[in-house]
């Protein structure tokens, strides 16, 4: 059984109000489709985050364990959060779901960067996220993520 590590959320907004615009809105659908394809799902993150329909959760991992978890999976998926930086640092290719942040700045060529359309990018890429609104339509559909996972895990 192939293992997928999912890092579904970016850190909560400092205002404590509203959804972080980087957070993907259709994790339930993604997880359901991944399960249909027989993947074993591990959710990583921190205590208090909403839980997806995982097989296993590994929350608040020490840094070295987090590295090991990512290193040993078949594929990882994250939003634009620290996971993509860490995975790239340890040379583990994965999938990053972007919405309003620019993959050309915050992403890495080594990964599969899923950005629906550059028209959704925010004008001021370095401004506070608290000033930005959440926009569901800025994200790719679950099917595109599954397609990327299958492509990446093909032959693993």
């Amino acid at each position, binding site marked *: 059984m192939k293992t997928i590590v999912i890092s579904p959320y970016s850190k909560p907004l400092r205002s404590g109000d509203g959804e972080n615009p980087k957070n993907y809105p259709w994790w339930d659908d993604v997880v359901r489709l991944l399960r249909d394809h027989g993947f074993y799902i591990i959710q990583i993150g921190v205590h208090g985050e909403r839980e997806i329909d995982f097989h296993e959760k590994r929350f608040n991992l020490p840094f070295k364990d987090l590295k090991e978890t990512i290193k040993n999976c078949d594929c990882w998926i994250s939003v634009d959060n620290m996971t993509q*930086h860490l995975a790239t640092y340890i040379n583990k290719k994965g999938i990053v779901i972007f919405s309003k942040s620019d993959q050309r700045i915050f992403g890495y060529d080594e990964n599969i960067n899923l950005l629906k359309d550059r028209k959704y990018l925010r004008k001021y890429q370095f401004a506070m996220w608290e000033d930005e609104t959440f926009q569901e339509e800025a994200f790719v559909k679950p099917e595109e993520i599954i397609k990327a996972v299958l492509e990446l895990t093909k032959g693993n």
Partner: protein
Amino acid sequence: MGIIDVTAVISTKDRYFDTLPMCIASIVNQTYLPKYLLIYDDGEQIDLRDYPLYQNLFQHLYRKDIDWEIKFGDKKGQVHNHQKAIEDAKTEWIWRIDDDEIAEPTALEILVSNIEEGVGAIAGGVFDVTKTPLHLPPNTPLNTIDTVRTSPNIQWFKMKEKTDVAEHLYSSFLFRKEAAKHGYCLDLSPAGHREETLLTYQMKRNGWKLIVDTSSVTWHHRSPNGGIRSYEDSSYWEHDEEIFNKKMEIWNSELGDYKVIMLDCGMGDHIAFLMVLPEIIKKYKKVCLSVHWGDPFENSNVKLIGIDEGKKILGENHEKHSIYKWMWDHNWKGRLKDAFREMWL
């Protein structure tokens, strides 16, 4: 050496009809002309174009192809104006001159003639116009930092030969923007006591040569009004001396030889920084990171301190360590890790 473009910079306060016009006139009459003149006005901020004296001076600048601009300062003192000048100047070399100083016609030409690789700044003699300049007494320390409080500044004397061993400069000098990347100490009071010492000593610490060539002459008119003499509160000087002492303490401490870099940003940014850390260590040798998370750097050969400690060491300058501010200011379009590379290498 090709043509070196220079921006002359004056920070002024309420010396419009005192020494400022003489200072500008001395710039107009240089044998080596600056390309730009930036004046930062912290005074009443009147429109100088309304006055015939300045109308003529500005015409004169125009005739000499010196592109001039007067910017209203934030009235936070000359240090902030000088910092702004580093950000605003379009040339790599900046010649700072005080608003109560008058440069001899060859002052800039001589300073420029000393430009070479590895030179961060060049100062000339700054002589009190009320006194005959004396020759440098034998055995006078050549502007070493440990004698800054006890020995006279060599820029006050005529020297037979120039020196490249000075550890700090003062008042008027020509400097390379690249060498001043660390910026002025913005924690200083509006009086800006020790501001040049702090700026130039840090250049020296970063490996740049500081030259003093007193054949380049600037006369100090010591105007009794305006400029830093507008500030009568002695606590400003005490405050600045305290900051200077604190900086010296850090420089002389265990951390003194370290390049301190603050990462007041997210975990992902810490890891993006980690990707370029080997190059940073190669450049600076001893690196101290002020971080929110130490784990990513566990096996790196760096010293780690917390954010609060970093803020104490860097003072107000810690804001310059913000990668997001840097990317914003530089209209950055490249990768995050490359922004770190560009910022620190």
